[in-house]
């Protein structure tokens, strides 16, 4: 029987589908009986899905600066970055 600690250690591989069939069975068996680990795995999965959104959008000034730089480079054909 896996301990809660081991389930947490293997949560990345469990969610990525990278555990062996035996390890996966052991993890599922533990999750069936342990609500804390079920909560951990569910919320850990939400966190991984949320990570691509963790950075804010750029400000108008930042966007304008990049677009100006692109315009400048395009008006000089052949110039390298």
């Amino acid at each position: 029987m896996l301990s809660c600690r081991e389930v947490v250690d293997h949560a990345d591989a469990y969610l990525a589908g990278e555990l062996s069939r035996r390890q996966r069975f052991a993890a599922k068996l533990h999750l069936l009986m342990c609500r804390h680990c079920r909560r951990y795995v569910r919320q850990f999965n939400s966190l991984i899905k949320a990570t691509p959104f963790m950075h804010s959008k750029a400000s108008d000034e930042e966007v304008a600066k990049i677009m100006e730089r692109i315009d400048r480079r395009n008006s000089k054909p052949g110039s390298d970055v």
Partner: protein
Amino acid sequence: MHNNQLTLLKNGDQTLFAALVRDHHRALIALATPIVGVSEAEEVVQNAWVKAHRAIAGFEGKARVRTWLSRIVINEAKMQLRARKKEVLFADFGDENLTEDALADRFNHSGGWQHPPANWHVDSPDALLMGSDLKDCLDRLLNKIPTNQRAILEMRDTSELPFEEICNTLSVSASNARVVLHRARTQLFKLVDHYQETGEC
């Protein structure tokens, strides 16, 4: 991104390109920072945008646009390092013991939960990390965790690059990369869990 948007973008629609910059610029800065350092990340990403603009017509849409842009940033960052004659990507790479397992103190001696996770209030995955207070906490954490953890977290979880590519870029083994990613994710989990429980960092 919808197919018609992609077509317009590839045909040179500047408004859509500006929207792309708005959506991804800060994430790309965060990706470049652990590789070239905070002072050079901005320059690297600006150069990468110029190259992305030139190359967008050839973007096939097979990868996510964030992943495609990330590859351009990483190439640019490597060029910058070569130009500066720096061979090592991170000063503290390999010292994975800098941060212990963030959740170690949450378990008792037999490996059961001593302090189980709080019940999070999650409306949607994209909203989980969006609160402005939490964002401040998150920024502080990202600046504090070892550079290798931050690099692999950004490459894998925000840029969604395949593990194999990350390992090649950073010259680390897959098992090392997985351990480092696990540590970064559990740091993040601990932060969000504490924030959900107390409303504080």
